[in-house]
């Protein structure tokens, strides 16, 4: 019996020892002194390379989105002395209204008499440019129908094989309906629609459309919504007036001029959207950079280093007249999957080449900004540096804004960006 107790206690003791040992295994803690004792160490430094060291070409292409698909309208008048934009809409007038009769029952009135209404435009209060406090808008009846998916400033239909121009570029304006003044601080612009216009729009034998333009030069606005409120008197209950809200069957904005591609200087944004393709040199691993803190002559191959950061450094230039971005724009780079069988501008874009950094403010593209814009390509660049096999064709990058088609303005840069690298090396590499 004593022997059994001894063994049982031995097991307990052994278990305690093992538990302690295993618990101790997880407590391997470093200390935060001792750095000066350590041999070697590492050094981190920056190098900026000119474009001819790493870049073969850059070119910008457009046409990646259509303004007709934008979830907003742009309306402008001689913005930056060059840019005009109108909103056009195809309308649908209701044929009936619903009223309650004297007994309280709901009844459909198929013969209502529409006598007036309002056209309301929701203004994007964060994205407008105007030289004056009060901006005048004008509403016209649109005299010609259009194809929502292909309409442009000059053509109301511009599909493959069919091109029908507007009689009047920018949308053929018919009868002037009303003017409205927009004051800063209000988010809606309301046009009063007279009974004659309502009747005309309700006439099913005629095209019903609206055109909204600006009268104040030097302005550009964005609107997010357009709808009409119609007032009708019932023939069932003559003392009842019913207000109906209707939305356009089709709507679009058209603008002039259209920026034609390609561009010799990098462009991003816009609608149709712009992308810039950068053709990099192959075998970036063999690129050399000067050693830090040692006399000239010492050079390091990038393959021997750790690249902590690789940023393309662009110099912003003035956007084409009228195309100053409406808002801050995110700019990033993606791997471009270029093949020999596909034109560069049609190359699909792959994964992000680096983190998308903070948005670039529109004021950076007014022509007097000297601060460069950096675009991270760290992830892609590190992969290229680790690649010791020549790539055919050469590696390409696509420069884009992640949400294409959200701006009419374009971010514009000088050609051939530089490359800023942050590099870390073990110090013993310097002393070879």
């Amino acid at each position: 019996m004593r022997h059994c107790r001894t063994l049982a206690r031995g097991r307990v003791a052994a278990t305690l020892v093992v538990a302690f040992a295993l618990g101790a295994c997880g407590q391997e803690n470093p200390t935060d002194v001792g750095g000066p004792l350590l041999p070697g160490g590492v050094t981190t430094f920056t190098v900026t390379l000119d474009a001819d060291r790493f870049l073969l070409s850059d070119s910008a292409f457009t046409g990646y989105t259509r303004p007709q698909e934008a979830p907003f309208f742009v309306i402008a008048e001689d913005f930056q002395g060059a840019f005009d934009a109108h909103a056009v809409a195809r309308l649908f007038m209701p044929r009936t209204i619903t009223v309650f009769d004297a007994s309280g029952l709901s009844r459909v009135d198929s013969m209502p008499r529409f006598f007036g209404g309002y056209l309301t435009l929701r203004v994007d209060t964060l994205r407008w440019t105007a030289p004056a406090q009060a901006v005048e808008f004008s509403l016209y009846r649109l005299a010609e129908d259009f194809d929502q998916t292909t309409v442009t400033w000059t053509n109301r239909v511009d599909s493959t094989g069919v091109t029908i121009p507007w009689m009047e570029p920018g949308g053929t304006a018919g009868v002037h309906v009303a003017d409205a003044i927009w004051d800063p601080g209000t988010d809606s612009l309301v046009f009063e629609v007279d009974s004659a216009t309502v009747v005309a729009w309700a006439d099913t034998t005629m095209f019903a459309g609206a055109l909204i333009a600006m009268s104040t030069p030097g302005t550009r606005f964005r609107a997010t919504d357009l709808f009409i409120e119609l007032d009708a008197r019932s023939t069932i209950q003559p003392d009842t007036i019913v207000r109906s809200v209707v939305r356009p069957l089709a709507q679009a904005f058209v603008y002039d001029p259209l920026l034609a591609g390609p561009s010799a200087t990098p462009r991003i944004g816009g609608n149709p959207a712009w992308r810039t393709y950068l053709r990099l040199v192959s075998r970036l691993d063999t690129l050399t950079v000067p050693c830090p803190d040692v006399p000239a002559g010492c050079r390091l191959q990038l393959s021997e280093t750790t690249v902590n950061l690789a940023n393309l450094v662009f110099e912003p230039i003035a956007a084409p007249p009228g195309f100053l971005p409406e808002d801050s724009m995110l700019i990033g780079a993606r791997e471009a999957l270029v093949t020999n069988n596909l034109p560069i501008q049609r190359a699909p874009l792959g994964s992000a080449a680096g983190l998308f950094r903070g948005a670039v403010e529109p004021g950076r593209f007014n022509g007097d900004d000297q601060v460069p814009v950096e675009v991270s390509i760290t992830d892609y660049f590190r992969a290229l540096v680790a690649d010791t096999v020549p790539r055919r064709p050469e590696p390409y990058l696509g420069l884009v804004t992640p949400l294409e088609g959200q701006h009419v303005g374009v971010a514009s840069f000088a050609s051939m960006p530089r490359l800023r690298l942050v590099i870390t090396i073990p110090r013993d590499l310097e002393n070879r």
Partner: protein
Amino acid sequence: MPRGLLMAALLLGAGTVDVAAQSLFATRGLGMPMAGVDARARVLGGIGVGLLGVNTTLANPAEVAGTARRGVSAAVQPVSGTFRLADEESSGSGTRFPLVAILFPLSPRLALSAGYTSAFEQSWGVIEEGEVLLDGRPVPTRDDIRSEGGISQVFVGLGVAVTPSFAVGAAAGVNTGTTLRAARRTFPDSIDDLVAYDREQRWTYNGAFARVGMRFDPDPAVRLGVTFEIAGDLDVEGQTPDAEGATVELPMRITAGASALLSPTLMIAAGGERAMSGATDGVFSTEGVTSFARDTWRFGGGLEFTGTRGGSRVYPIRLGGSYAQLPYYGTDESAASEWAFGAGIGVRFQPTSLTSSAAIDASFERGGRSGLASPAIPDGLSESYWRFTFSLSLFGR
């Protein structure tokens, strides 16, 4: 042998490869020399040679002669320390496994032994925070530099009791091990999202060694032990492209120890070791770093009281201390040394003069190391630590 205890011993041994203790003195040369001893020998001076009674430390292959039972022993050693360098202080901790030993008597006079003991420890880690100027802008950095591994001795030995009072023994084995050194620089709070720098270097070690020893008991209450160890060149082989290899001469050691019973329940033990570095002109180079190596002394001793008993068990109580010179230091640095004092307890199950059925020992020591002063760091590095050692020995029939 109780199977539960055997399982525990195996579990203790299973961890020897993975974890290790920490000292910033291990940043020099081949690292910190370690005594591959159990908790009893640790508190009695750390020499492990010439100890009366059950001695599972295999420092002297002759001392296993006469062992009556098959046995296995393992030790675990958690360490917690405080480091001081240039008015800065920090703490760290770690665990190592200094010893796994197997005893196998072939006859009453002949016994085999096999062991795995720590020889040099290279586990340490340093975190250093600083900043670099990038395009004129300060960017914070955090360097995390770690080393894991070290050199261990794996060996087999044979002890022969020529007479009941005199035994000789020999052991041979390899110095083997791996060191992984990892450096990582991160950039906390960087607005540029800088990617971390990582570098890993790995070395393996391989070299032979041999040890001979003798035990002499001039009186049943007195034991003397001496060992002599010689090692061949150690091949330090880089396993990563930028890990530079080397061939290193390991120290030759002469170790001597003695113990005596002052009374039937009180033993005194003392010993010392001389290690001749073997490095040509005192310069030792490996892993891309040049260190100096010197000949060193190591001394230790202690008292063991075995008067506390309960039934078939004995509960030893021990006191002791040790002093050691550390062999490695860098260019322009002063050499370093170490001291420790401690106490320990244990349990002996069914003890006799030659063996017991099981033994559990624990020791705790307070110690310190200092040295590596240089023009850049006039006060050098100092460490103070608490070191706990637990060992478990199990014996069969």
